[in-house]
């Protein structure tokens, strides 16, 4: 077994990317993700990579667009307000089928908001990470170890389907330290014959482009992409089920919140209420099938989030009216306590 080391979530994000062969990073400082940039700036120059601090998040994400369009594994990271700026290039990457990794270590919003942990960018990540018809893969780790695993998966799947991928973390996960085992990724970067890296006089020019002025042509491009999305929805849904075998109340939570929820679920069981937890690992594609599996078993679902209620809409879509779907959340950077969640579970269990 490899050695366990203590690492901050943000550092694990950076180290995982390096292990996955991503040695180009374009960033801009913002709390609470700054350690990702700091780690990269320390490590990358020593291994022949590039850490570049951009003049803005806009520029950073467009540098990412350029680097990724030229066929290499590259990434950028930010926190909520910075992600809003990055959405411009993300839409272009989606529209020109360029795979890349974007990390959001979420903080409270809207506006400048706060710097404490939040999950209020769920809609942004899963619905509208920029203008136009598109989706990005969204992975939501819950432990520092899982951050590493999902960074590997995100790079691999982004390249397989030629879509951008996002790691949606939060300030708590980014700042906390936990033991991790650094294992090498199982997969290698994919071949990229489409990349714009110079044709070496061996082929015709590659064009990375999202502009199609003929409406039918653009429609066809989008439809082709949505066919890929259908395959992704079929093959890439991921969720963890915790104490769900005999659960009567299914608490749905992702990321750092799921850890608080699991503690509350365990306590609820000690107090005689059969609760369980479904933890979505992919937020897009949403693990609808896992949720739907339990509609005939549980009497209700409860979505717990660090937001005013965003993922709950996906739970409702999956449940499709079969049983009630409740919500409990804290926002603005307030981390819900296990006791609060427990009280909500007990109220529903009565």
């Amino acid at each position, binding site marked *: 077994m490899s050695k*366990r080391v203590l690492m901050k979530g943000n550092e694990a994000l950076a180290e995982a990317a390096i292990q996955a062969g991503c040695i180009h990073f374009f960033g801009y400082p913002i709390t609470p993700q700054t350690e990702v940039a700091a780690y990269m700036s320390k490590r990358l120059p020593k291994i022949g990579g590039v850490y570049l601090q951009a003049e803005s998040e806009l520029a950073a994400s467009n540098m990412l667009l350029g680097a990724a369009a030229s066929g290499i594994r590259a990434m950028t990271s930010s926190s909520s307000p910075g992600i809003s700026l990055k959405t411009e290039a993300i839409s272009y990457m989606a529209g020109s089928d360029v795979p890349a990794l974007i990390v959001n270590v979420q903080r409270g919003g809207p506006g400048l908001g706060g*710097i404490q942990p939040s999950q209020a960018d769920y809609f942004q990540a899963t619905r509208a990470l920029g203008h136009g018809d598109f989706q990005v893969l969204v992975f939501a780790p819950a432990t520092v170890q899982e951050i590493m695993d999902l960074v590997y998966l995100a790079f691999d799947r982004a390249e397989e389907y030629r879509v951008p991928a996002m790691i949606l973390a939060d*300030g*708590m996960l980014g700042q906390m330290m936990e033991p991790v085992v650094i294992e090498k990724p199982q997969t290698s970067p994919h071949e990229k014959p489409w990349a714009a890296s110079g044709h070496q006089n061996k082929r015709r020019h590659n064009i990375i482009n999202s502009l199609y002025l003929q409406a039918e042509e653009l429609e066809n491009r989008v439809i082709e992409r949505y066919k890929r999305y259908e395959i992704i929805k079929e093959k890439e849904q991921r969720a963890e089920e915790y104490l769900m075998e005999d659960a009567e109340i299914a608490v749905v939570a992702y990321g750092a919140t799921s850890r*608080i929820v699991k503690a509350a679920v365990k306590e609820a069981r000690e107090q005689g209420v059969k609760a369980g937890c479904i933890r979505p690992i992919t937020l897009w594609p949403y693990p609808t099938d896992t949720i739907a599996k339990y509609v005939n078993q549980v009497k209700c679902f409860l979505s717990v989030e660090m937001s005013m209620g965003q993922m709950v809409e996906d739970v409702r879509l999956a449940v499709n009216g079969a049983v009630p779907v409740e919500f409990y959340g804290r926002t603005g950077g307030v981390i819900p306590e296990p006791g609060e969640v427990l009280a909500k579970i007990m109220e529903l269990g009565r």
Partner: protein
Amino acid sequence: MEYKIKIAGFGGQGILFMGKVIAGAGLADEKEVSWLPSYGPEMRGGTANCSVCISDEPIGSPLVVKPNVFLAMNRPSFERFIDSVEPDGIVIIDSSLIDEKVSRKDVKAFYVPATELAEENELNGLANMIMLGKLFRETSFCSNQALKGAVEACVPKSKQHLIEYNLKAIGIGENL
């Protein structure tokens, strides 16, 4: 045994460092551990606190809301967290900086003049390690070897000469 530890004081007292040593010691003993700092402007001179969990089981919430161990290194932090300590919890107070006594009868309180002891022993800035030594004595939260190893691992490579002083400070706390 699951240790849910809250450490709080001013920025610059080595609050986060102390937490890292504790988490590192837990790791060395092959326990599950987590360390969660307060972050942001607090790091720059205001209050600082961190949550550390050590357990045989995977850690649920890394945010310690109801600590069973509380180390207080200034008065505002003491006042903020003392009521959250679980019954039968352990409270260690730097009595050089906090002149208040614990009014609760359901916790075990220890008063350590850590800042004064550090100065007397020419270990300025290592009151945190004296507090840690006391914690080690009262709880044996980790093995001796793990604690020493964690100090060695947590002190930056450029400051290896400080290991000795850190261990000396722990020794002072341990013998109180």
